[in-house]
């Protein structure tokens, strides 16, 4: 009989709407990161590096990019005879067909998948954080404390604790209380959204709460188990962990990779991060190009100037172009003499020549001031920007734009041009 000690369930179905136009056509875990990777690569690489070789990836929102990226799991060595990676979308049933209505509901709908592997423990993960973590150490902690549930937690600065789900523990690490975004935090241990459940406990709770609308781990399953006296422990993680849920944090964590010795180091042999590499030739740096503090992916061609930026594979920066404090993702082209300041350019975009993005006065975004902020210009996947236009700060552009979309060749700060994608 098939037996896996621990299997992982990776929640990758959310849109991640705070990433704005970046997630117009793909789920957040599929967004590229760090000049080569996609966000989900970190969780998948952590799994295989921790010896977890059975991973169910739950998809729902715009899964095409994720499906093609993961395939049968070859880049992560997750193509296995027994186990490996399985993509688990919502499916039609004879009765009660529904979408995944919440994190726990999604897991509940895949009880049969988990039962097939006969696990002792189930690891629940999100696909939207940048970190390197040995889940086996968490499992050892879980066993040593004879826990029913172990939450991975990370100490955060006390003044920021009110933005997180905070746990309060006793001296042996057992959680006594939960506080969701407390105004007056009594602890600085934040939940990372990573749980190890003893399988029986998880199964019982999922079945018991199966009628709960929008059943969610944080809101329903954990409180239910806590109420029933289950042993819930906090594992304290002290490495680099970054939630890239907002455009600003996404931009910041990309920029952190450029530091001379980055806090989050991709160059260590130990604990490699794997990804599907579609572009493998070396990059070409032309005569007259200038690059100062950057990471640049395979197959890129740099003819212009790049300062303090993350440039993805296959990107072309043409002559005279200046890219500063920006992220340019896979396959995009920045035309001649264009200037980019603090831009996030998604995959396969074409920026024309003599374009200026991210110039002018600060002005809050008129549509979603909390998403498009901090002076960033965000350009969605596959967008085209015509020659000789300029755009201000806190702007968003998505789709094929023409000169008519830019009155007087100018998109003022805080304005948007949205011509494609499912946005709400």
């Amino acid at each position, binding site marked *: 009989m098939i037996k896996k000690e621990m299997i992982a369930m990776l929640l990758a179905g959310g849109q991640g709407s705070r990433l704005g136009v970046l997630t117009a056509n793909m789920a957040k875990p599929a967004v590229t990161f760090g000049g*080569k990777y996609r966000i989900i690569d970190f969780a998948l690489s952590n799994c295989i590096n921790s010896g977890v070789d059975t991973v169910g990836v739950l998809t729902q929102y715009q899964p095409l990019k994720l499906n093609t990226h993961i395939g049968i799991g070859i880049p992560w060595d997750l193509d296995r005879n027994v186990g490996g990676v399985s993509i688990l979308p919502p499916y039609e049933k004879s009765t009660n067909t529904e979408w995944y209505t919440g994190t726990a509901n999604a897991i509940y709908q895949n009880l049969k998948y988990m039962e097939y592997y006969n696990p002792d423990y189930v690891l629940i993960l999100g696909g939207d954080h940048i970190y390197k973590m040995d889940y086996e150490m968490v499992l050892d902690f879980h066993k040593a404390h004879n826990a029913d549930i172990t939450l991975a937690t990370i100490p955060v600065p006390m003044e920021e604790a009110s933005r997180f789900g905070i746990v309060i523990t006793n001296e042996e690490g057992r959680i006594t209380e939960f506080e969701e975004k407390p105004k007056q935090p009594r602890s600085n241990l934040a939940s990372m959204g990573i749980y190890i459940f003893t399988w029986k406990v998880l199964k019982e709770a999922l079945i018991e709460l199966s009628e709960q609308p929008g059943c969610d781990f944080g809101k329903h399953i954990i409180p239910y188990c806590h109420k029933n006296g289950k042993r819930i422990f906090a594992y304290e993680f002290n490495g680099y962990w970054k939630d890239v849920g907002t455009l600003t944090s996404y931009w910041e964590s990309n920029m952190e990779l450029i530091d001379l010795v980055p806090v989050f180091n991709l160059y260590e042999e130990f604990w490699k*991060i794997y990804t599907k590499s579609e572009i*493998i*030739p070396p990059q070409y*740096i032309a*005569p007259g190009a200038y690059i100062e503090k950057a990471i640049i992916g395979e197959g890129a061609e740099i003819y212009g100037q790049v300062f303090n930026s993350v440039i993805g594979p296959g990107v072309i920066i043409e002559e005279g172009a200046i890219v500063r404090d920006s992220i340019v993702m896979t396959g995009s082209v920045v035309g001649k003499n264009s200037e980019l300041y603090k831009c996030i350019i998604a995959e396969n975009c074409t920026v024309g020549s003599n374009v200026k993005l991210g110039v002018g006065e600060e002005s809050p975004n008129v549509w979603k001031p909390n998403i498009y902020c901090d002076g960033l210009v965000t350009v969605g996947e596959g967008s085209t920007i015509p020659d000789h236009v300029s755009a201000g700060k806190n702007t968003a552009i998505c789709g094929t734009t023409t000169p008519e979309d830019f009155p007087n060749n100018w998109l003022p700060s805080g304005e948007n041009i949205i011509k494609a994608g499912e946005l709400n």
Partner: protein
Amino acid sequence: MAGGNSTRMMELSNKRAIAAMPVAGSYRAIDFALSNMSNSHVQKVAVLTQFNARSLNEHLSSSKWWDFGRKQGGLFVFNPTITPDNGFWYRGTADAIAQNLNFLKSSHEPYVVIASGDGVYKMDYGKALEYHINKHADITVVTKVMPEGTDVTRFGIVKVDENNRITEMEEKPLVKKSNRVSIGVYIIRRRQLIELLEKASSENRDDLVRDIIIRYKDVKNIYAYDIDSYWNNISTVRSYYDTNMDFLKKDVHDYFFKEYPDVYSKIDDNPPAKFNPGAKVSNSLISSGCILNGVVENSVLFKKIYVGNNVTIKNSVILNDVRIGDNTYIENCIVESRDTIKPNSTYIGENGNIKVVVVKEDRYKIG
């Protein structure tokens, strides 16, 4: 054919077979032939290795990179083995295939493409096969007419009649009689090949070119199939250096890197290249996993190279996984893979010669 060594590669071949030589930053020589096979829908490929095969076997540890992990066909690696009938190494190209004749006999595919593992080119073997069939040829030799003025005396030179039938062929001639060179790719019917090899083997003849193509040129229909696309082989230090430098030309790197179909290679999972303050790079290829703090001009840097502060690299080829200590100056060199170069070193290839740098220093002493 990936078993060969070349003394003209000097120290570079101490470490690996020519077919395993790193090329163009991210590849090894054999990737070009293997990718051509895969892209030409040749599904069953045998690689014959003999000389210094460790690097090559490591590179071929999985067939998935070239899409050969199939139920039909696949990638076969044949090292010489001792059998009750045979205790010899591969004594030549024909002998290498003859020793694996059972593989050919038990196959069912009607044609065989024989290709050398040291050519850098893109080619659809299917087109050559079509030509072979239309010409009713017994053997087709793929050739390229080299530009006037090229020194072709290190190649096999082919002379043809007006129908492109080969009338003369000479290996590494003292005086060239034509500019048409064999690129080391042959097409032949499988049964024909078996027959010729059995005959050659019984006469103790071991060389494919000398004992089969040249010997039979008057009794068999042997045709030349010309290609006019990029081709180079890397059998000497100079040609190896020049081939790598060719990839700095826009037309060459666009042709190999951007035009369909792709060239495939083993994936190494290196992070993107990192440019720190002090890095100044011009007209160079930089591969994944590099960390740059110094000046790089007109050079090809392979994977995972660390360039220290105040380093200058000019007109050089730096192979995989090299660490270059601070204040080092390198010009007109090929630096062997996994070298660790001490700070304050100077290596210069003088008088237009290319210097091959092989140094072994303790990796952890670098400051």
